């Protein structure tokens, strides 16, 4: 019977003095585990990113856009018959006629040079109403929201994103400062927190002004989008229907708008979600397979070397049980360390990735981590311990001669 201290020491020496062998095993296992952790984090991050793009659209928000979307796939409007504009008056009338509508946020989007003192910067200008901030669940880093009691009237209040603030104003307090956007002048009342981005808009690099001012600034009669929130208790699909009816009525009987509900939007992307989820699972499966094969190969390379040593230990009086204990401990140590290193480096890579690309929420799904660790431990143990166990059951001379 080998005593415990000797057993540990013997294994430790085997690991340390067979440095190349140990490092290969460790590498195989760590690479396997790390690749599962990283790849599934990428897949899951992409999935969450796409999901997040729609998350800002609450369940009770409708998006109205000008132009009729031809679901039948008809010809585009013939020359001169461009879709009729959706105007601020339309928006106003819609709000007045439908009591089921809670808030309205018409949007006009453009880009313009914004300047303060001698500094100027090209930024995205978003004309909208005060409702925009709550509809998009935006937070303010300082100051307050703009006031647009009657959104058809000019206002000189504006909100700026954090990047705009940093680059134009530096460290001075933003509130009260007047900016120039072309001929238009506005006064900063608040600063937006974070990026608040979705659907490709990075609001930290934007400035929000009243929609009426934006209409003048960009000299456009129509709005780009209209966000509508529905009062609690109203059925969103019937409100959608009512909006189409009212707008058709306002546009002299012509149905020339499209209303998108969050359900419809998500349904469009349903296929993508399924593909992305399957993709994550496939990636995990493939990387596990690669990890398993990698670990298996490295372990099998060692078998003949180990078998000879096992034969010798038995010739020197070790029992099969002694030998199995010695090699089980060695397997457990290398496999456990390899798994730990792999998990840790995978986690580090994922964390770095999150820092580098903050809008994609890279995260390894817990099930992937668990399965990766389980598979690594299992393949590692099976392919290092099983051959050792088998060799320990051979007649000593057979094991001794195995390397030839």
């Amino acid at each position, binding site marked *: *019977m080998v005593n415990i201290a000797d057993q540990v020491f013997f294994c430790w020496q085997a690991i340390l003095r067979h440095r190349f062998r140990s490092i290969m095993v460790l590498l195989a296992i760590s690479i396997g585990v790390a690749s599962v952790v990283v790849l599934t984090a990428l897949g899951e991050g992409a999935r969450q990113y796409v999901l997040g793009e729609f998350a800002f659209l609450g369940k009770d928000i409708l998006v109205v856009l000008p132009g009729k979307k031809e679901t039948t796939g008809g010809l585009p409007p013939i020359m001169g018959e461009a879709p009729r504009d959706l105007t601020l008056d339309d928006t106003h009338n819609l709000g007045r006629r439908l009591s089921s509508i809670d808030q309205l946020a018409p949007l006009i989007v453009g880009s313009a040079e914004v300047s303060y003192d001698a500094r100027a910067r090209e930024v995205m200008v978003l004309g909208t109403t005060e409702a925009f901030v709550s509809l998009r669940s935006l937070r303010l880093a300082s100051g307050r929201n703009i006031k647009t009691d009657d959104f058809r009237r000019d206002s000189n209040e504006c909100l700026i994103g954090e990047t705009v603030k940093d680059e134009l104003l530096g460290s001075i307090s933003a509130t009260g400062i007047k900016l120039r956007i072309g001929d238009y002048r506005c006064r900063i009342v608040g600063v937006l927190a974070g990026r608040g981005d979705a659907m490709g808009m990075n609001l930290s690099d934007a400035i929000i002004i009243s929609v009426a001012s934006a209409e003048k600034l960009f000299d456009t009669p129509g709005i780009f989008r209209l966000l509508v929130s529905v009062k609690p208790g109203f059925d969103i699909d019937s409100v959608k229907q009512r909006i189409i009816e009212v707008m058709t009525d306002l546009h002299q009987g012509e149905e020339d708008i499209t209303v998108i509900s969050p359900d419809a939007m998500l349904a469009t992307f349903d296929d993508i979600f399924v593909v992305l989820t399957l993709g994550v699972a496939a990636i995990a499966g493939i990387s596990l397979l690669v990890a398993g094969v990698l670990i298996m190969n490295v372990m099998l390379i060692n078998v003949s070397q180990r078998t000879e040593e096992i034969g010798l230990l038995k010739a*020197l009086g070790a029992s*099969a049980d002694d030998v199995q204990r010695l090699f089980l401990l060695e397997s457990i140590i290398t496999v456990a360390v390899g798994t730990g290193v792999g998990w840790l480096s995978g986690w580090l890579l994922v964390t770095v990735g999150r820092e580098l690309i903050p809008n994609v929420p890279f995260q390894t799904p817990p099930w992937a981590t668990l399965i990766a660790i389980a598979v690594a431990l299992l393949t590692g143990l099976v392919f290092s311990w099983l051959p050792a166990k088998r060799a320990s059951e051979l007649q000593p*001379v057979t094991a001794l001669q195995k390397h030839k």
Partner: protein
Amino acid sequence: MMIELRDVCKTFYLGESSVQALNHVNLTINAGEYLSVMGPSGSGKSTLLNMLGLLDRPDSGYYGLSDTDTNQLTDNQRAAMRSEYIGFVFQAYHLVPRLTARENIELPMMLAGISNGERHRLSSQAMQRLGIEDRAHHLPNQLSGGQRQRVALARAIVRRPSILLADEPTGNLDSHSGIEVMELIEELNRDGITLLMVTHDAVLGARAPRRIKMLDGTVDEDIIDREVELST
């Protein structure tokens, strides 16, 4: 410890063909004897020695060690017997490459669960006896062939076995270090250990008072010097 083989057979199968490595071997060896085993390559010398060392099981026949029928023993009991009574020296040394000379010598004692202090004492003694005490911390690949075989010999005798089995122990050595290792082994026999040595070298083989010649898996010749027989 008396060794008794009766009608021991061993056949190896390699694919279609088979080799009868031991063919009804009968042999009785008394405690303290010194035998050399000679014979052409492939005649079954190593197989015989492995059988005697409990490194392999015969297909049929009886192998008794001091009246214990070794075929009746479990693998674990056979391991215990190897640990207690048998020392082995191989032509290819079979040292563990990652272990120092001292660690290699202490290996059988570690496997037997002997305490550190006792291990150190006994391994120092064995190294001193074989003149390798200054090589204690060398790894096998830092030693010459003769030194490696001394380490292997020290490992084989460190637990004071009753039987020492040496399979061409000088086969990889030049004649000078071969003679040196031989003298060390013979000295152990003078201390009472039973010694079986396989050799190709007729001069070395002739030094033994009892000489066996193997041929095609059988004991072809078994010559005992009379005066030695009388003196024991």
